[in-house]
């Protein structure tokens, strides 16, 4: 059994088309079998609604009088990229406002624009003979500009990882707030509704495929950046006209201490051209796997703890190292379903037709890491010998060590070299001023530490975040193996 795009479009025109969502397809194939489902069902709709940081929009404002050639410009105080002709710009969703910073960014500008709000445009120029205006401060709405094109270089991740945090402090990431000691887990992706999981071999998804984008229609214009279909991390490059979109499906977001982004609603109709596609679109959450990844390790290649299915992820709690860990999504299942349902309705009502891709997308690319010319430095490369005192010593001993070694930080250990605390020259001064004589009264027991394999930048950030100038270096058994201070980092 095979069908053509033309046959399906004829059915859409005549109103006979049978459309179901990817969730509904699972049951249909289960009950009727692949063969019958392939004959009965013409189109399966998919949907996803999650934070997609590689999103933004090209805008063209028309010319001012006298004309200006922007050198820098801001939309509601969010800097837009200008490297094109005089009055074109690209507003990226992760660029944060110069004024409101984390609270408001490019994603919010796009949402405000689509919801009809007025946007403040400020810009300046070095001026030329043909563009003499030096500054502009004006306002515009979506209707008042020429083009507003959503152009997202990387959307619709086929799947995404599940993030957890092994470290001893809360992490604020693009995967949300991750509690210490595996306190919670966050995942993303629409599972069985994910567009690319329903056509993993890119039979129907290619350049020119018409899609649901931001509440309007858009097109796939190529593979997304970092497209990595060989390990089920395919992505899409998409575009669409902002003027016919709906702000319900384009939402600016702010992730605490991370930055801004944009939730993008995206759905793809999969034509059931053959039995193979009927089978693929019936994929369920229990067949879709992803990795649980430890974001507590601040490296590119974070440790993968285990594989997990989307079915388990949907369960509210996941099992990790024999413990129940509360788990929730970063992308909305409610909206993913709503998108698949909306797209289904559009097709049923004859408002949306399918088109054959002009070109298929690559299925063999991989995602390469950045080439770095300079070797990265680790704590073990720059650490020095820690000056140590035992936890039952006299303050005088510590003071002597400070003088003899010209070192502000004395690491306190037990006889087995296990870290017990830290005492600084300031602590000793304070002890004298307050007439304290016992080490127990001045020792800092909760010590922020680092380890040999932490990159120097991670150690530096830890010092900066905690307003301190030294970190004892410890091994996995809490034994002191050195110290790194702000002096080594300069």
């Amino acid at each position, binding site marked *: 059994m095979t069908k053509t795009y033309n046959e399906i479009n004829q059915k859409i025109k005549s109103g006979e088309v049978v459309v179901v969502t990817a969730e509904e397809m699972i049951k249909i194939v289960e009950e009727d079998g692949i063969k019958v489902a392939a004959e009965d069902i013409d189109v399966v709709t998919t949907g996803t609604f999650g934070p997609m940081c590689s999103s933004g929009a090209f805008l063209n404002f028309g010319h001012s009088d006298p004309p200006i050639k922007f050198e820098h410009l801001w939309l509601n105080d969010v800097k837009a990229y200008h490297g094109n002709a005089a009055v074109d710009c690209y507003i990226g969703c992760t660029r944060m406002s110069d004024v409101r910073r984390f609270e408001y960014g490019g994603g919010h500008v796009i949402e405000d624009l689509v919801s009809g709000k007025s946007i403040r445009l400020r810009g300046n120029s070095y001026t030329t003979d043909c563009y003499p205006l030096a500054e502009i401060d004006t306002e515009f709405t979506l209707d008042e500009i020429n083009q507003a094109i959503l152009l997202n270089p990387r959307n619709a991740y086929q799947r995404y990882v599940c993030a957890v945090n092994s470290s001893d402090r809360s992490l604020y990431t693009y995967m949300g707030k991750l509690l210490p000691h595996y306190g919670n887990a966050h995942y993303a992706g629409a599972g069985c509704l994910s567009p690319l999981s329903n056509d993993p071999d890119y039979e129907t998804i290619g350049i020119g495929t018409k899609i649901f984008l931001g509440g309007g229609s858009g097109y796939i214009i190529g593979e997304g950046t970092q497209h990595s279909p060989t390990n089920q991390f395919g992505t899409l490059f998409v575009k669409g006209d902002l003027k016919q979109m709906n702000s319900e499906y384009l939402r600016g977001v702010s992730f605490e201490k991370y930055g801004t982004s944009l939730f993008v609603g995206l759905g793809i109709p999969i034509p059931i051209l053959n039995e193979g596609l009927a089978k693929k679109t019936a994929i369920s959450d229990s067949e879709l796997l992803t990795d649980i990844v430890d974001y507590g390790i601040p490296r590119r290649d974070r440790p993968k703890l285990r594989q997990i299915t989307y079915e388990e992820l949907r369960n509210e709690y996941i099992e990790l190292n024999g413990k129940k860990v509360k788990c929730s999504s970063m992308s909305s299942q409610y*909206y993913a379903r709503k998108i698949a349902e909306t797209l289904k309705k559009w097709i049923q009502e004859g408002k949306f037709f399918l088109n054959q891709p002009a070109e298929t997308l690559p299925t063999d690319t991989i995602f390469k890491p950045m080439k770095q010319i300079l070797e990265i430095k680790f704590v073990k490369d720059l650490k020095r010998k820690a000056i140590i005192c035992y936890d039952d010593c006299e303050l005088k001993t510590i003071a002597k060590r400070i003088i003899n070694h010209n070192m502000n930080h004395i690491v306190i250990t037990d006889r087995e070299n296990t870290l017990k605390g830290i005492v600084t020259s300031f602590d000793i001064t304070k002890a004298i001023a307050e007439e304290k004589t016992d080490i127990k009264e001045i020792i800092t027991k909760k010590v922020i530490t680092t380890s040999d394999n932490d990159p120097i930048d991670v150690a530096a950030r830890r010092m900066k975040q905690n307003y301190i100038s030294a970190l004892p270096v410890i091994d996995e058994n809490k034994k002191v193996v050195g110290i790194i201070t702000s002096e080594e980092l300069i």
Partner: protein
Amino acid sequence: MTVMNITLPFGVIKDISDYSRFINEILKFDITLNILKFSTGTSGINLLIDIPDDKIKSITESLKKNNIIVNKKGRIIIDTEKCIDCGACISLCPTDALNFDSEKRLKFYYERCIGCLLCLDSCPRYAIEEM
């Protein structure tokens, strides 16, 4: 003492005299009324009040009679217009006060909320407000 989270809906409280009338309703119970927090939210005026445990029942009944919404333990408010049902807050809630309903829309169960506020900075839409 118990912290009570109440909302004076717009329409019920129109001016200062309505507000005084409502405060007097509570003061009838001859208690020291601590107003811990006063804020305006999307549905009305939100108050966090501290009341003696033995008066919870009678005060609750009196407030409800006056169309005041009593959210017994909840210390947060979800702005449903801002919420996009992503679920980023759910994993942070130790008492399942934040969870999805059967339609996968975010639901807040006031009675389960212990006011730990762990969820507060997890919302990418600033849809969780502290009372």
